[in-house]
């Protein structure tokens, strides 16, 4: 049967139509054309989109599985150099961020009193006008530095944009709350570098961890887990040894080869004790210490004053008996740690929140870092590496007008009054004090960017009072939280799964990587990208601000930056199969270098594969000159010394009289050497006999993740606790207090008390009580609110006056059984 012409034409038309329709379908499916999905229920068309997880600073690459345009699962992106396909439990809860009944769906303006949580929905135009009016007002009044930004999440491009905006606007007050801890200050003082360096865990053979629970709550969790797996059980390589020094049997301590519990806050002493043994037994790297360090031996400055060296200090002050007395660690253990650390090289000494949560944090960190220098693990494989270079930028050069220049040059509001120490003395504590007193200048507009200080900080009343002093507070939160209810205006940001962004500031990586964040689905609510808000403000402000940020929308900016990556001809997009270790895949050429002719190809590949990676060239000069005054690693921090000496006398006097530095200063040179300071303790030891030790958990981090049922259900999955806080107590201690497992107890500090269930755990040190952070929300959605307790409610606001970190582990408490109620 032949086909006549008519039929042929008809069929042709159908086929044409079909072809065009087919294209339309795939478009429809990816564009989430709702009626189309309805018309094809259960088609099960699967698509994957790469993005980046923004729930913690880890920066894991993710792939989101979409079925019929509906996101159903987040998985790790195997091509991401950070996590290599793994994903921690929090990452899996990402969809519950996107789909959450507590999201803010539209800009809100406060109608009631502050903190009353009564709002009026307004349009974006109105909201932006309101915001812009305030920004303009500050510039018109020639006080742009009265703008303060508190940022809890921004990284990568978003942070770059914000910093750029603030510089062009003219304020130095950009405070990153998420980078509060662990501080990078010791690197500045001893290394001459401000940013956190890269840790070469891949090649290390020994990790001496001081209070760094890196398997649970510190560092990029998926990356650390991946490394742990590789380092511990990998045929063909030595099993890395891990010693965890921590008053709590944390996950890392459980998985470590050895857990050494010590008295809280005495990390510095233990590190110095270990150093003492190494020096006495001659176990340190003598060549390195001789050639590349400063201040190990006694020395004489150019004015002829003699100074004591680190060695002398060690030998005199930190003999094992004394250290053992301070730390409670048996002498044998100190010796054994010192010997095995020296034997298993390259090794690395790291510290974490356990250390920075004390008022003596800075000196403890310096003491621990000194161990790295003693074994020569500075800028050497398996040790601490130079921080990788930042990715290139596509932003035009910064343009600042006079006002902006003047404003940016003002001393930031978070610095200690009058103390012009460029590196030290920055702290939230000073920020609060300064806002409160209006000195040196008042803050008039504050932006809260995905941060919840009212929940995360001890003594929230202090923050609340500071907020009350600020006439206009804007929150960019996508969900209501304890801090946002104190704001005047809420400009809801997209969730990270609806956002364009580039992410590249993952701490501790020894390589540069850029991961693209692309919207998985169209924004579900009437929210707006914070970058777009800033860009439109820049546009409205005009002048130099607009010149610095000429882009009109954030997506364009992302593309510009990506183009800069492409044009730089550095790095490559990760693709194909990964080899296990960077070193090995460099040598084996396991990487596929993709060449892209045009930016469009590059862009497509970036969207498809997710990450761009640049591995730093192997250093030819094994130990380059550091940017310290001596050009070497400094045991005796000349940076610090000079800064201090340059201070006006009245400030010096203040420091001598009312800060913990005073003790050290009275001891002369010790103040600039790694040494042990007694940590501050709040609460009388007789009335409050127990130490409260709050700890972070992987599932909740700082508490932002609490409104996810998935994570609340597995909040204490290793302890069989769900949806609730638990207080870990040693069974022996509990017996003395007549507390049984599961009893309700009160934990009372000088600041207040909380009621929580006792959890007897042999891993708890006697005399301590451990509480998880991140629970106990009061205004944070239906899954998080009124579940568990917030240890911050009873913590005393204490801090390291030099390093600035909040000293969370300095509160003493008493425990007693709650009467049955």
């Amino acid at each position, binding site marked *: 049967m032949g086909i006549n012409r008519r039929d042929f034409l008809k069929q042709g038309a159908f086929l044409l139509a*079909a072809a065009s*329709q087919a294209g339309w379908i795939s478009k429809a499916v990816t564009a989430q054309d709702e009626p*189309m999905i309805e*018309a*094809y229920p*259960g*088609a099960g068309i699967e698509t994957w989109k790469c993005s980046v997880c923004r729930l913690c600073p880890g920066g894991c690459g993710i792939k989101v599985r979409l079925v019929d345009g509906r996101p159903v699962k987040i998985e790790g992106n195997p091509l991401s150099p950070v996590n290599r396909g793994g994903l921690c439990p929090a990452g899996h809860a990402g969809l519950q961020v996107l789909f959450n009944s507590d999201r803010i769906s539209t800009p809100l303006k406060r109608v009631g009193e502050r903190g009353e949580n009564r709002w009026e929905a307004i349009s974006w135009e109105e909201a932006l006008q309101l915001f812009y009016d305030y920004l303009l007002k500050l510039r018109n009044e020639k006080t742009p530095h009265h703008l303060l930004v508190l940022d809890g999440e921004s990284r990568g491009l978003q942070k770059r944009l914000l910093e750029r905006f603030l510089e062009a606007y003219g304020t130095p007050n950009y405070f990153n709350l998420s980078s509060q801890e662990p501080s990078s200050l010791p690197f500045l003082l001893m290394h001459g570098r401000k940013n956190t360096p890269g840790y070469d865990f891949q090649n290390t053979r020994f990790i001496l961890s001081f209070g760094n629970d890196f398997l649970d709550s510190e560092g990029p969790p998926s990356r650390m887990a991946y490394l742990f797996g590789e380092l511990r059980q990998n045929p063909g390589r030595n099993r890395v040894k891990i010693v965890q020094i921590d008053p709590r049997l944390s996950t890392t301590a459980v998985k470590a080869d050895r857990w050494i519990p010590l008295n809280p806050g005495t990390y510095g002493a233990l590190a110095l004790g270990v150093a003492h043994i190494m020096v006495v037994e001659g176990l340190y790297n003598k060549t390195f210490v001789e050639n590349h360090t400063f201040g190990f031996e006694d020395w004489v400055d150019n004015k002829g004053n003699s100074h004591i060296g680190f060695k002398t200090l060690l030998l005199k002050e930190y003999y094992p008996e004394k250290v053992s007395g301070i730390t409670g660690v048996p002498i044998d253990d100190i010796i054994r740690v010192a010997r095995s650390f020296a034997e298993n090289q390259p090794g690395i000494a790291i510290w974490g929140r356990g250390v920075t949560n004390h008022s003596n944090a800075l000196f403890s960190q310096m003491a621990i870092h000194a161990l790295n220098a003693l074994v020569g693990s500075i800028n050497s494989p398996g040790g601490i590496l130079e921080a990788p270079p930042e990715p290139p930028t596509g932003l035009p050069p910064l343009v600042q007008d006079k006002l902006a220049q003047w404003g940016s040059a003002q001393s930031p509001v978070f610095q200690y009054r009058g103390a012009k120490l460029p590196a030290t003395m920055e702290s939230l504590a000073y920020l609060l004090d300064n806002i409160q007193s209006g000195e040196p200048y008042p803050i008039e507009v504050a932006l809260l960017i995905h941060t919840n200080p009212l929940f995360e900080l001890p003594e929230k009343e202090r923050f609340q009072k500071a907020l009350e002093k600020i006439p206009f507070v804007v929150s960019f939160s996508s969900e209501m939280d304890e801090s946002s209810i104190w704001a005047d205006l809420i400009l809801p940001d997209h969730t990270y799964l609806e956002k364009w962004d580039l992410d590249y500031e993952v701490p501790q990586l020894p390589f540069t990587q850029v991961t693209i964040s692309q919207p998985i689905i169209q924004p579900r609510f009437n929210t707006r990208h914070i970058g777009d808000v800033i860009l439109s403000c820049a546009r409205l402000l005009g002048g130099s601000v607009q010149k610095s940020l000429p882009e009109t929308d954030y997506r364009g900016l992302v593309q510009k930056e990506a183009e800069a990556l492409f044009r730089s001809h550095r790095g490559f997009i990760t693709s194909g199969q990964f080899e296990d270790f960077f070193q090995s895949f460099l040598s084996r050429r396991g990487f596929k270098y993709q060449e892209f002719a045009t930016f469009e190809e590059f862009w497509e590949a970036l969207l498809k594969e997710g990450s761009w990676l640049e591995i730093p060239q192997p250093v030819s000069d094994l130990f380059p000159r550091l940017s310290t005054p001596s050009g070497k690693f400094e045991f005796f921090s000349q940076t610090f010394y000079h800064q201090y000496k340059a201070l006006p006398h009245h400030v010096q006097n203040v420091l001598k009289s009312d800060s913990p530095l005073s003790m050290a200063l009275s001891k002369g040179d010790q103040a600039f050497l790694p040494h042990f300071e007694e940590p501050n303790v709040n609460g009388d030891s007789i009335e409050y006999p127990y130490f409260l030790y709050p700890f972070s958990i992987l599932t909740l981090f700082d508490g932002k993740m609490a409104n996810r049922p998935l994570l609340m259900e597995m909040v204490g999955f290793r302890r069989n606790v769900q949806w609730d806080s638990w207080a870990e107590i040693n069974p022996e201690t509990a017996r003395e207090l007549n507390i049984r497992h599961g009893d309700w107890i009160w934990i009372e500090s000088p600041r207040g008390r909380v009621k929580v269930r006792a959890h007897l755990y042999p891993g708890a040190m006697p005399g301590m009580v451990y509480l998880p952070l991140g629970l106990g929300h009061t205004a944070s959605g239906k899954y998080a609110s009124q579940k568990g307790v917030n240890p911050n409610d009873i913590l005393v606001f204490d801090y390291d006056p030099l390093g600035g970190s909040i000293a969370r582990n300095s509160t003493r408490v008493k425990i007693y059984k709650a009467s049955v109620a």
Partner: protein
Amino acid sequence: MKLTKSKSWIILFIGLLLIVVSVTVIARNDEVKQPIAFNHKKHVDNNVPCNFCHRLYETTRAAGIPSVKVCITCHEDVLYVTPEKAKIQTYYREGKDIPWRRIYQAPDHVFFSHRLHIQKGQVECKQCHGEVKTRITPFTQQTVPLKMKYCISCHEGVESIDNPYECIRCHH
């Protein structure tokens, strides 16, 4: 007359039974009314390929009920408007989809894949949907009762299926 009392009980019981039975029988007759008097035969006769409308059956789990946008590609002419065509155009204009009533819907706990049956199993449409090609009215009820028994009856004879009783193939 004590027996009448018991008899009345029995009559009542039988009456109730009858009501229940008739209600179930009526309820089982679940014919539905479709919004448009769709004529499969006409479309087939006009050489419209199956996958023009049901465009997913070869590639995905679902067969795909065409959305109004698919219908309108052919039925947008306004010259010869039949009442049925007018309905399509109205739906399209209003931006609504045709409210087809689904007849063939696997329950939530059954996972059926059209493409596997069509592509690998070489099953013809009519095996489950009856003679579609000659049908001049829209479906108002299942032509073949799609119960598990029916699935099994087919699977039992097939060589390439190693175990027709593997429950988790379809229930997961």
